[in-house]
């Protein structure tokens, strides 16, 4: 036993303490509790993993499961509260607690002047708790607890500035769009229970592996597609990606932690976890790959023209998540997870760097009002450059290592996917360096007085910069390989990687040409391709299309049918109708109660006459 339960419980305790007494405590106490709980959790992860032999003998390939108690017992179905660690969750544990720790530290600096300080850290700790539950889960239901919990924290933190309407709206949007995905996840769980009688990872995968690959393809396809619906919601893929760009309404550390590094990769983690099921469903794999690729291309093109620095990185995140799904769909689960890790490094760094920039220029997020910050905030500049190099796939950076693996896998899956991926990589490099050049080069176009951020913010940036550059040398794919079904061995072809790298470099050069060397070219290009530019700038009008086809009909339907028709018409109408009928009948009857004794007597006489007549007619009188 390694007392795995302690890992999530530390942040939960932090949440409870900060949530209950944080309001009256000083910021230092809140900081100590929030950061300390995550630090303890990180240390406990290290301790448990070293005890399992992560550094020395190498971790065993089978999972270490700890069963605590039976949670649900119904007929043959037995769901226990079980936590487990294997190589896959070990990687995620290190990423979640490690990056989480850095971002907590960063946030103590970034949020220093914000209201609701204790609330922010309580939510952030709660998020850590749910995320760790998600990662440690040993069955699909426990994973679902974490899955829903991180969704809740995401909602709470997106809407953190609850006095701004757009933040509240963005939170609701994230929550509602995620419900669509959760619907798919739930159905997939039901199908698992029906077909396997269990939700336990070990049992389900054992049963799946025992089957020949071509057996039960239909049911596997259904389960995998439904799981992918869930993953598409959580990990922002077409058609459910719309919530993630809006989620940038939350504070920047939240964007870094939840909406770039950890939570949004939960879908990829879940599918990698279910790889034993997915290999039975080649159709589902193709769907995953194509949707991932389409998302990558679409959001990369949108990212080309956005002016809000966080929006650029948000679309970049969607695009990179698409890459990861492309890897999963191509059967390169290890490469997908590798990209999860390296992406966590450089995207967290990009967001934290963006946060540092925003902090420096007094809350401005518009790239057009930045510029020339290179000399004013040099540490932020240098670290962001590291992240930008990594995401562009420049050789020897972490991004190059993982992205190349994905593209090579895609080539062996279908060459056209490789080429689309390469073009997307070029666009990625272009938009990231566009944001860097617009923010850091040229002349300062804003009115604030930029200043470098304190060490609590730049420290995590520097650590992440090192990881972004060197993270590619972690032999993660090799470490994860035994976890996943074997790919057919293919001779690696060097030119594939060279092309991908060249595409990234071309992207960078174009960005340099457009935004540093001759800025007039960019304006000219946007004028020459005005229609295209407008289409991209308005994000393909997807939000408008959803508004027109989904949101408006539901709102109008609720208003005119459910509210006016059903609620006020039918339900209120029935109740009021019964009331009015009672009043009408009473109104008629009360005329009998005249209070006039002679009218009563008259009625009595009439009644007796009626009775006598009736008796005469029925022949009772003889």
């Amino acid at each position, binding site marked *: 036993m390694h007392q795995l339960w302690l890992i999530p419980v530390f942040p939960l305790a932090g949440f409870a303490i900060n949530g209950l007494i944080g309001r009256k405590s000083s910021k230092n106490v809140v900081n100590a509790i929030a950061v300390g709980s995550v630090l303890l959790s990180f240390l406990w992860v290290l301790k448990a993993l070293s005890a399992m032999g992560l550094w020395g003998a190498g971790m065993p390939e089978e999972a270490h499961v700890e069963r605590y108690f039976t949670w649900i017992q119904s007929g043959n179905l037995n769901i226990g509260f079980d936590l487990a660690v294997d190589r896959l969750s070990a990687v995620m544990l290190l990423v979640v607690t490690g990056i989480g720790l850095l971002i907590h530290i960063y946030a103590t600096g970034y949020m220093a002047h914000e209201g609701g300080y204790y609330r922010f850290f309580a939510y952030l700790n709660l998020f850590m708790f749910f995320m760790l539950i998600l990662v440690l889960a040993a069955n699909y239901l426990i994973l679902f607890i974490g899955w829903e919990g991180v969704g809740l924290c995401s909602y709470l933190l997106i809407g953190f500035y609850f006095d701004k309407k757009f933040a509240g709206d963005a939170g609701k949007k994230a929550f509602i769009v995620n419900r669509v995905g959760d619907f798919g996840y739930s159905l997939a769980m039901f199908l698992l229970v029906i077909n396997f009688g269990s939700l336990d990872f070990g049992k389900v995968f054992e049963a799946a592996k025992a089957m020949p690959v071509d057996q039960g393809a239909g049911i596997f396809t259904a389960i995998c597609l439904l799981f992918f619906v869930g993953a598409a919601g959580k990990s922002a893929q077409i058609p459910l990606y719309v919530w993630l760009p809006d989620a940038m309404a939350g504070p920047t550390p939240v964007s870094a932690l939840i909406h770039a590094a950890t939570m949004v990769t939960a879908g990829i983690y879940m599918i990698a976890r279910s790889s034993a099921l997915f290999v039975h469903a080649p159709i589902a794999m193709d769907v995953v790959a194509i949707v991932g690729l389409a998302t990558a291309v679409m959001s990369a093109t949108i990212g080309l023209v956005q002016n809000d620095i966080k929006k650029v990185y948000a679309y970049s995140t969607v695009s990179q998540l698409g890459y990861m799904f492309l890897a999963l769909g191509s059967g390169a689960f290890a490469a997908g997870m590798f990209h999860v890790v390296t992406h966590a490094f450089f995207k967290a760094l990009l967001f934290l760097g963006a946060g540092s920039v925003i902090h420096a220029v007094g809350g401005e997020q518009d790239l057009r009002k930045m510029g020339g910050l290179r000399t004013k905030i040099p540490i932020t500049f240098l670290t962001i450059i590291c992240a930008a190099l990594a995401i562009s796939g420049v050789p020897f950076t972490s991004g190059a290592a993982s992205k190349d693996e994905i593209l090579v896998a895609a080539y062996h899956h279908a060459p056209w996917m490789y080429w689309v991926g390469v073009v997307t990589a070029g666009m990625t490099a272009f938009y990231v360096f566009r944001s860097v050049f617009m923010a850091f080069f040229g002349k300062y176009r804003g009115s604030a007085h930029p200043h470098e951020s304190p060490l609590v913010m730049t420290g995590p940036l520097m650590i992440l910069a090192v990881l972004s550059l060197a993270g590619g040398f972690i032999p993660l794919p090799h470490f994860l390989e035994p976890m996943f079904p074997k790919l057919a061995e293919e001779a690696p072809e060097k030119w594939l990687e060279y092309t991908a790298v060249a595409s990234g470099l071309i992207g960078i050069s174009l960005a340099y040409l457009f935004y540093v060397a001759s800025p007039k070219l960019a304006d000219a290009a946007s004028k020459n391709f005005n229609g295209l530019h407008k289409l991209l700038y308005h994000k393909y009008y997807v939000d408008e299309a959803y508004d027109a086809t989904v949101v408006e009909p539901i709102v109008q339907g609720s208003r005119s049918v459910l509210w006016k028709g059903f609620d006020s018409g039918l339900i209120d109408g029935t109740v009021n109708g019964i009331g009015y009928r009672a009043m009408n009948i009473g109104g008629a009857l009360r005329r009998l109660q005249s*209070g*006039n004794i*002679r009218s009563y*007597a*008259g009625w009595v*006489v009439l009644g007796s006459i009626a009775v006598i007549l009736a008796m005469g007619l029925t022949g009772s009188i003889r």
Partner: protein
Amino acid sequence: MPPLPASVPLSWYLLLSAVLFSLGVAGFLFRKNIITVFMSIELMLNAVNLSFIAFSYHLKQVDGQIFSFFVMVVAAAEAAVGLGIILTVYKNRSTLEIDEINSMKN
């Protein structure tokens, strides 16, 4: 008991009783003066008494006669109380119009 003279048939008594009762009802319903209404009630009681007696005689049973005594006793008591009430009403209102004595209603 000597046989009765060629007796009056029962139906005649009942018809007389019904006519008297109807007159009482009509007086109760349509007359305005309380005294008249009161007398109409007495008329109805006596119409009923008449049919009691007639049936008693016809069926050779004494019960009907006993009933009519009861009715007379009650009618006497009622007359005493009722006339007392009427007297008091007249003292207070100086009217015996039945439609004007309606202060309980509003």
